[in-house]
């Protein structure tokens, strides 16, 4: 039962990805061609509200539902892994038109060929796990 809230949140996320059209290859192409404000508006609104909310959580030391402080962990300092990893991710994002969340939303929407994209994303993660110690981080 303790997982039901995550099922509800995931469902909400899936519906908003579909209804905002952020799960469409066309919308991602439009974004990377800078031909519409739509995707920038979505991400920009989420980030601006996010920055305000996170700073309020920190300032007022807001706790979560079980009374623990909400904490944020600084990501490890580096440039290479974020730049190279991010670039590879971006190549895949513009080709398949979907990042991991929208992939599964597409599957639910009925685009079964996204199953192939998602399975290969799992394989890609597995390959990273195998060779990670040989990569610059």
């Amino acid at each position, binding site marked *: 039962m303790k*997982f039901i809230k995550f099922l509800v*949140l*995931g*469902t909400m*996320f*899936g519906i*908003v990805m*579909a*209804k*905002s*059209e952020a*799960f*469409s290859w*066309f919308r991602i*192409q*439009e974004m*990377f*061609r800078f*031909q*519409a404000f739509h995707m920038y*508006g*979505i*991400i920009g609104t*989420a*980030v601006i*509200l*996010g*920055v305000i*909310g996170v700073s309020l959580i920190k300032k007022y030391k807001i706790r*979560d539902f079980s009374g623990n402080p*909400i904490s944020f962990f600084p*990501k*490890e300092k580096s440039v290479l892994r*974020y730049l190279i*990893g*991010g670039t*590879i*991710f*971006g190549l*895949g*994002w513009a*080709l*398949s038109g979907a*990042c991991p*969340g929208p992939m*599964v*939303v*597409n599957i*639910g*929407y*009925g685009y079964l060929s996204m199953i*192939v*994209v998602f399975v*290969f994303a*799992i*394989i890609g*993660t*597995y390959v*990273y*796990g195998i060779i990670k110690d040989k990569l610059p981080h």
Partner: protein
Amino acid sequence: MLEYISQPWSWWVSGIIISGTMFLLLFFGQSFGFSSNLRTICSAAGGGKFVKFFDFNWRSQIWNLVFLIGAILGGFIAKQFLSTGEPILISEATISDLATLGISAPTSVQPNELFSMEALFSLKGFLILALGGLMVGFGSRYAGGCTSGHAISGLSDLQLPSLIAVIGFFIGGLLMTFVLLPLIL
């Protein structure tokens, strides 16, 4: 009401709901980052026996797998109950740019040239989908997160690594869009 929410949602409504999702996950003691699920799935499938990176207590991440199942369900609900079936209205400039690549104007959510069953069962079509997925899965773990973990959660916390990752997303995305897609398609 149902008729109203069956229309495409505006960017600001969508942005508010996405940040709301992030804050509710924080309130429930977790954080918003979808691509972690890919690592969790590798681990749950037994990958930890062969690769150290997948040897961790994946059961602590079940909440996120449940979130993933919800996302599939959300896609299903959106299609079955909240959809008008209208094609996606993208800009005319994008439509004409894509036409030069052989992608016709939207008739639904995704281009038939890439996501129809005919495309999937052609060698080129399959390789495009497979390569796209591979790079997303490899790149997101290498960068330590995807759009949700870096562009939403990380930027909300003003983390410099997330900004670098998002810059990377755009370097890769622009390279694919303007240099590689014309060669591939």
